[in-house]
């Protein structure tokens, strides 16, 4: 299976309209997993469970979930490894559930590819709010919105050899002929920035638009996602020129 083959597209998302979303819960505590399953099923989600990291990695291929909820503290294979393994071939949103409010753990989970996090003990509405935000943003790029632009797209980097092109209609980003393997959230951050090239977006604004977090959201989520985005879209991630940091203000996209 190629990475691009399993990758999310707007078209594939639309298949799910009217169909319940499937969530994979990765949690080794039986009570929490069962209670979470009941609560999420009440919310209308289709739920799959994995009680260990190994099972989770296996289940992602079999159950083809649309989203994942991953506990960081699992048995032999921890949550970080699960996310890293899943991210090799999947762009689905991953929400981390951690019993540790430890700041390094959360940043580490985001670094390996988690999209958002909730700390235990949580209320089910906190999780569903996160999931809803992740689902809603997929509808923000309706297919067929730009019937002609779908082919052309927006050129973000006029590199003569390998231009970087964002095609919102198909929900893809290409560097030359190669599709850039962005996760949903990275893609969405890029879209937000590309919507107004040259304009500075504060971390707060990005957090509200992409994650639907309020004033007290964790701005580190934005920083980690921008960092991850840069490694995929910049010519030289150590000297970013496309997605630039504006000191004390936020981020800006400068088309090259």
């Amino acid at each position, binding site marked *: 299976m190629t990475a691009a083959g399993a990758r999310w597209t707007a078209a594939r998302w639309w298949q799910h309209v009217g169909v319940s979303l499937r969530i994979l819960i990765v949690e080794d505590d039986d009570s929490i997993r069962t*209670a979470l399953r009941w*609560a999420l099923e*009440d919310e209308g989600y289709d739920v799959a469970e994995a009680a260990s990291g190994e099972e989770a990695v296996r289940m992602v291929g079999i159950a083809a979930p649309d989203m994942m909820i991953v506990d960081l503290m699992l048995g032999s294979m921890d949550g970080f490894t699960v996310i890293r393994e899943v991210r090799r071939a999947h762009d689905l949103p991953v929400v981390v559930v951690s019993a540790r409010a430890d700041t390094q753990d959360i940043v580490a989970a985001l670094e390996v590819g988690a999209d958002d996090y909730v700390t*235990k*003990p949580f*209320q*089910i509405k906190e999780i569903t709010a996160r999931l809803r935000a992740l689902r809603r943003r997929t509808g923000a790029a309706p297919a067929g919105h730009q019937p002609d632009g779908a082919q052309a797209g927006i050129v973000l980097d006029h590199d003569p050899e390998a231009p970087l092109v964002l095609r919102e209609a198909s929900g893809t980003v290409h560097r030359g002929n190669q599709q850039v393997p962005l996760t949903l959230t990275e893609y969405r951050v890029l879209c937000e920035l590309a919507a107004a090239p040259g304009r500075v977006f504060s971390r707060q604004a990005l957090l509200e638009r992409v994650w639907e977090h309020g004033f*007290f959201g964790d701005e580190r989520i934005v920083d980690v996602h921008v960092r991850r985005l840069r490694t995929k879209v910049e010519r030289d991630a150590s000297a970013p020129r496309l997605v630039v940091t504006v000191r004390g203000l936020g981020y800006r996209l400068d088309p090259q």
Partner: protein
Amino acid sequence: MSRTAGRRGLRARIVLGFAASTLLVSAVLVTTTWLLARSYVVEQREQALTQQAFADADVLRNRLSTAGTDVGRVLGELVPFGDAEVVVRSGDDWYSSSLDVGGRDVPRALQEVVATGAAGALRVETADGPQLVVAVPVVSAGVEFYEVAPLAELETLLRTLAVVLGAGAVVATLAGAGFGAWASRRAVLPLEQVAGAATRIAGGELSTRLPATDDPDLVGIVAAFNSMVDALAARISRDARFVGDVSHELRSPLTSLTTSVEVLATRRQELPPRAQQALALVEGEVARLRVTLDDLLELAWFDGAGHVPDAVPVSMTALVREVLEGTGRPVALLDAGPEPETTVLGDKSRLERAVRNLLDNADRYGDGPVRVGVRRCEGSVAVTVDDAGPGVAPLDRERIFERFARAPGSARRSVPGAGLGLAIVAETTAQHGGAAWCAESPGGGARFVLSMPAART
């Protein structure tokens, strides 16, 4: 006697001890030296004078043995030693080499000794100072020979010696005191280091240790002190970790409990009335447990960390407005004042929690907040939460910031919360380099102030 004089410090005692022992030793030495020197010098002088007197008496006898020689003439030829004068008695006549001396200067006791035919010497005190009188009977000539020598010069010499030795003793005493001061400083220095380290440790710098030393007298103290601090630090971190671990362990069951109760709550209508009431009770208690556990974890975090990991600029005006909106309170409570710049460097979610705790506190004990002021004054930003309640008694104003402290008289059940809210406020502001305190609002209610250094712009 004053208390300070009655209880002298270690260093003063060491200095005094050194000074006293030096004084004692030098006094003994000086006195012995002086006495020995005096007896030696006096003996030498007496010996010299006596020999001279015998020699002179010999000359006198030789002269007188020559027939027809007059005592007066012989006396003129004698050259006495130094300032000594010669007095000769022949029968009842006294002859003298000087007009200043005569028979009157010869003590009677000496005359009696000479009368027995023996020689002798005697020290006498006169108005002109001490004199040594040496008596030699010249039997062959039938005269008594006396030599009178003043000892004033010798006395001057001995006095000078005494002064020099006394001065030496004083100098030695002062040097002893000085050495004592130096030695006591050396001795007390390690103690001062220990005191300094202990002060820093008491101030929370648990990583403070005494520097290693190769001084064999101090190695034991340094090792004992450092291992005591190690044990203390281990104990403190173990206590902090225990609270954190317990809270952590409670998280998982509480998560499944919360979620299960929520599953039940969505089916509330399917339950019989009594079960619905029970569910409402459980919901309330689970919520309370969540809050308490959250607070405990927060405090455990403060005990473990102590600095803001990612300080970002936070506008307190915006933060207070967001908290008011987010908790469904009227934004009109905010009194932002004329200064627009109320930015501090800090941890947004923790500051939010502190402000929220103050508002909740006003709800619980003060009939709700009536004004939330945000002011910047001289490099600090202050958030003031006023309520219209009964206020806080001056005696309780510090105590209420302690953990598990609750308003006096409030029944355990009547007011929710475990009394950790204000402790978290205090810890948060302290962590941000500020302070939180309680005062009286102009309206007579309680006023809680949270003050932190403003971010430099």
